[in-house]
């Protein structure tokens, strides 16, 4: 088990190292990067929209359910919703979902290219396939996923506001008041830092599993599943590590 871990980790690092070389044609790399931005960013907008709205709504309802004391002002619900969404739900939950959506897509796309010899065809043309196929995916993820997480944060809070209003839990004025209470801009930095780390994991780990797949269609499916599982575990692990390092009073 230990040796397999080092084998995979070593191959993963070599894959990342192999990405760095002079592009054969910068225009083609840019085109591929833009295509990945559209696939990863615009392609995931729908699911991010849905989960973040409901995530905010459910958070408001559940916090209201737990804060039963009459001495706690209603605005506190909004404050807790805000911090929970910014610190945890928007970056982590969104990235867990993106690991499934984007990660499986990356692993299966590269796996299919490997199995159908499309990667070999590009290698023979003299193209650095790691640079041309993997680097644009990682770059696009590093740009688009933090944007998606910002959108998820705004939509989550808006969903919480609407759920509070519609459920008669708290008024919009109370919610806005709560949002302004004890505001720490550092939380935004923390959320964005996490989103960059998660974006790198979401794009590079499935790329590794897809790029080195061996066998046929069955193995592509297995690689895709393994990529999503490993990505999710790594996201949760890094979530804890980053919280432990960056959220010390």
């Amino acid at each position, binding site marked *: 088990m230990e040796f397999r871990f080092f084998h995979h980790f070593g191959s993963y690092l070599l894959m990342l190292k192999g990405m760095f070389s002079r592009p054969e044609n910068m225009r083609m790399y840019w085109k591929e990067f833009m295509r990945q931005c559209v696939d990863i960013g615009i392609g995931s907008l729908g699911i991010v929209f849905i989960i973040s709205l409901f995530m905010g709504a459910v958070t408001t309802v559940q916090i209201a359910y737990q804060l039963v004391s009459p001495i706690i002002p209603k605005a506190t619900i909004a404050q807790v919703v805000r911090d929970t969404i910014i610190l945890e739900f928007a970056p982590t939950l969104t990235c867990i979902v993106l690991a499934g959506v984007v990660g499986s897509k990356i692993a299966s796309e590269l796996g299919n290219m490997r199995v159908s010899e499309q990667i070999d*065809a590009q290698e023979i043309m003299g193209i650095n396939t790691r640079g041309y196929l993997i680097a644009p995916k990682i770059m696009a993820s590093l740009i688009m996923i933090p944007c998606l997480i910002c959108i998820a944060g705004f939509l989550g809070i808006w969903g919480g506001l609407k759920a509070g209003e519609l459920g008669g839990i708290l008024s919009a004025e109370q919610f806005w008041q709560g949002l302004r209470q004890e505001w720490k801009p550092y939380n935004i930095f923390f959320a964005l830092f996490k989103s960059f780390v998660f974006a790198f994991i979401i794009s590079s780990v499935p790329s590794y599993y897809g790029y080195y797949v061996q066998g046929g269609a069955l193995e592509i499916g297995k690689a895709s599943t393994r990529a999503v599982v490993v990505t999710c575990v790594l996201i949760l692990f890094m979530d804890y590590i980053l919280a432990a390092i960056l959220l010390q009073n």
Partner: protein
Amino acid sequence: MIELVNIKKGFGEKVILPDVSAVMETGKVNLIIGSSGSGKTVMMKCMVGLMEIDGGKILYDGQDFTNMPEQDRKNIRRQIGMLFQGSALFDSMTVEQNVMFPLDMFSTGTLKEKKARVMECLERVQLKDAAKKFPAEISGGMKKRVGIARAIVLNPKYLFCDEPNSGLDPQTSLLIDKLIKEITHEFNMTTVINTHDMNTVMESGDHIVYMYQGKKQWEGSNKDIIFSKDEKLNDFIFASDFLRDAKEMRQMEMFQEKDWRNKLKKS
């Protein structure tokens, strides 16, 4: 010309190519033939650099491909065109975009020039009408022809074809063989074909290397095969009674033709 000098390749304990030397000649269709597991695919993958060899040398027109810096290797690779067994076309691109891809990546010409070159290549393989179609919308034979068009679009010096006839009907197979042969002779390329299709062997084999259990068992041309005394080669090529009969008939025909020519000369 591609020279293989004592190349060795194995996977762990298993030795696939113990010590193979061969020469792939320029302007000729060079065939690597042999039964499944004889090491011909490994040999081809080593030749194009998809697999690293464990020992020996591969020379491209005298340049040592095995020990050269990565950038020089890339330069050699840009002179290589390859047709894969499964065609390896890019699914998300149309036929035209597939053929255009190497030009987009490496050519500095204008879009108009590139399109003209793509159309020239598609016309060469008689697929001009399929330019806007996706690989999923065309037949296996058409995919192979698109693969050939993509392989020749950059005017390569070396053309590699991995089982170009697999999964094709005999008529389409002949069409592909004819096309590869014509292109090779027209552009004076060094073509290497990996096959176990007997039609290809007899129709296109200017130079044939027969592999048996990872070793070069026999070497010659398609004309030499008819008179070869190598038992293993004969068992492989003329495996059925029908093919053995055909061989004997062809031998007789060739003797008669020779005899008739001799008589004509004397008269």
